């Protein structure tokens, strides 16, 4: 009798030990971030701080996950205004600790983070400074769709919510395949010549800029099946490249997608261009193919998760004949996007996030 009890005890202990070690092995998470650094977490991070350039990009990515509301403890604030979109997603965001622009490593450490997230594709100086303090830094790249999806996967790992990451990735892949179905097989001759143009009066001077080759705006043009006319031009830097009307006329695109800085009113600019004597002569305008890039609080051209909306919209505008009227209905698509990815309700979406769509 005692022997039997001992045997049972042994087996149960072994089972428990196996179970514990298995779960311990599960708890240890290792990821490879966008800068090529590998990170290992024994314990999932519970105090996350976001700093570095364009913090809104990693923040919008983090808020695809519910866990962010609890685990995000602070972030760098680059501009005076609050992020109106994040206010919608997380009304409690004002309770998070803001860091003024360009914090030093001590200021970051004062928030006692166990993970710092920075948008970059090379190891940042901040990462170097925080390393001796034992504070890990994860870099998110968000420069190409593949990089973006890998970032989402990494975020899923650090939250221990691979399931949610899977849902998000699946959504993006599905939407991308929708587009590819229609436009993926076009030859270069069949492709529409598209131009993505940033129209800005920053610094009082009017400037026209085209996006860098590696940027999301260019990716969107490529994904949506277009032939970006500005890709051949020399681009030694990684940013918006200034161009002018003459070059645009020389490129003679079939479709022009205009990104207007929010200090200017988009519809007014469009109207003005159509009435302008030289712009009006461009092929694209003659065919009524000048489009204003839609925006909710953030433009659909940014590297935030809404880039997929931009790509879908561009696809439909570039090849309207390939899509049925009901296919890829943007209103439905937008509602689905914000509902699934950010958990917002229809009323909020319609009231605050639905852009003017032609």
């Amino acid at each position, binding site marked *: 009798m005692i022997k039997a009890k001992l045997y049972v005890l042994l087996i149960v202990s072994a089972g428990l030990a196996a179970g514990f070690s298995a779960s311990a092995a599960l708890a240890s998470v290792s990821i490879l971030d966008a800068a090529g650094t590998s990170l290992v977490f024994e314990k999932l991070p519970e105090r996350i701080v976001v700093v570095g*350039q364009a913090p809104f990009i990693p923040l919008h990515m983090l808020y695809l996950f519910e866990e962010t509301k609890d685990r995000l403890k602070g972030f760098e604030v680059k501009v005076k205004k609050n992020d109106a979109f994040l206010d919608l997603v997380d009304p409690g965001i004002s309770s998070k600790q803001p*860091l003024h622009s360009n914090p030093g490593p001590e*200021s970051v*450490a004062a928030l006692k983070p166990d993970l710092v997230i920075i948008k970059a594709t090379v190891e940042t*100086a901040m990462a170097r*400074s925080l390393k001796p*303090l034992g504070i890990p830094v994860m870099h998110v790249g968000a420069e190409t769709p593949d990089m973006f999806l890998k970032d989402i996967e990494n975020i899923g790992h650090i939250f221990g919510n691979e399931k949610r990451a899977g849902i998000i990735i699946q959504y993006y892949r599905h939407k991308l395949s929708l587009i590819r179905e229609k436009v993926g097989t076009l030859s270069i001759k069949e492709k529409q010549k598209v131009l993505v143009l940033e129209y800005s009066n920053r610094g009082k001077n009017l400037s026209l800029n085209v996006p860098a080759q590696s940027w999301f705006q260019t990716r969107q043009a490529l994904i949506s099946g277009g032939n970006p006319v500005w890709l051949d031009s020399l681009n030694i830097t990684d940013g*918006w490249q200034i161009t002018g009307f003459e070059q645009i006329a020389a490129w003679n695109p079939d479709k022009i997608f205009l990104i207007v800085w929010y200090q200017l009113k988009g519809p007014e600019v469009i109207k003005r261009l159509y009435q302008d004597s030289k712009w009006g002569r461009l092929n694209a305008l003659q065919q009524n193919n000048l489009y204003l890039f839609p925006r909710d609080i953030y433009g659909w051209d940014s590297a935030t998760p809404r880039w997929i909306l931009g790509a879908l919209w561009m696809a439909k505008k570039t090849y309207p004949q390939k899509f049925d009227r009901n296919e890829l209905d943007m209103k439905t698509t937008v509602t689905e996007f914000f509902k699934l990815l950010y958990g917002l309700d229809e009323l909020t979406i319609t009231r605050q996030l639905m852009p003017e769509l032609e």
Partner: protein
Amino acid sequence: MTDKKTSLIFILTLAMVIGSVFFGRYPAPYMTSISDMLSDNLVLKVITDIRIPRIIMAFITGMVLAASGTAFQMIFRNPLVDAGFLGVSGGAAFGASLGIVVLGGSVAAIQGAAALFAVSGLAFSWVIAVKIRFGDWVLRLILSGIAVSAMFAAGTGLLKYLADPLRELPELTFWLLGGLWAITWTDTLQVTAICLPCLVILFLFRWRLNLLSMQDETIFSLVASASWERILLLLTAVIATSAVVCKAGQVGWVGLIIPHIARRFVGSDAQKALPCSLMLGGFFLLLCDTVSRTLLSGEIPLGILTSFIGAGLFLILLMNRQLQLKKG
């Protein structure tokens, strides 16, 4: 009398070095108390891994800029030069801009390019000076230094223009304004390894600087080795300055002003003025850097503080000088 002044400066400097360890933003802004250090493990780590390397770096940077400035002013017989004007500062700025805008922006790219172009700035200045056919060597070097610096400034301007305003331009502007916010032990050790020997050399040659500030014929009547002494000291000053500038960015006014202040305190004799410069330079930069990393939660670029305070001191000095001349 002078020894009393020197001792006072030494004590103040020591106090500054020790005191700066206690200031920062972790766990709370400004002073870190002993009890903080005992209770929170991370405080000690912050001190040993963030503050101390940065303090050492700031001190060495100040020493190098001040000592190099002194050496350059005496060798060029011109109180308005500093070690950067021979294309070193301009080259470093251009290199860093290149690193940020074109080469991807990694730490290695920025520092490496800055160092490379700082030294090449000097090389260009030298080569051009050799080709100029008029004036004595001082004039030739000054002219070519101005020309090379101007070329680099143009290049930097072009890169600023091409930089993406959302990501690269702020980073570039921040670098150009100078700052030690990303210094780690690796940086400090690298700089110390290069700068310490240079500082020792400058220190050993401090009396010779007096000699080298005389006119060429007078020097010739006294020593045979003036040419190579000059080259040695200029190179030493430039190498140390390049090392420091590629890590710290453009920190202006220190090399220009501190030597003047040192001279006001202990006289123009470089035998005393150089050591005084060393201490004052270290003190001044450490003070500015401590303010830069402690005052606000965001880093204040170091160059802004040194320029403000440096230019302010310069104005005071200028106005005081006039009073002095009337007496003498």
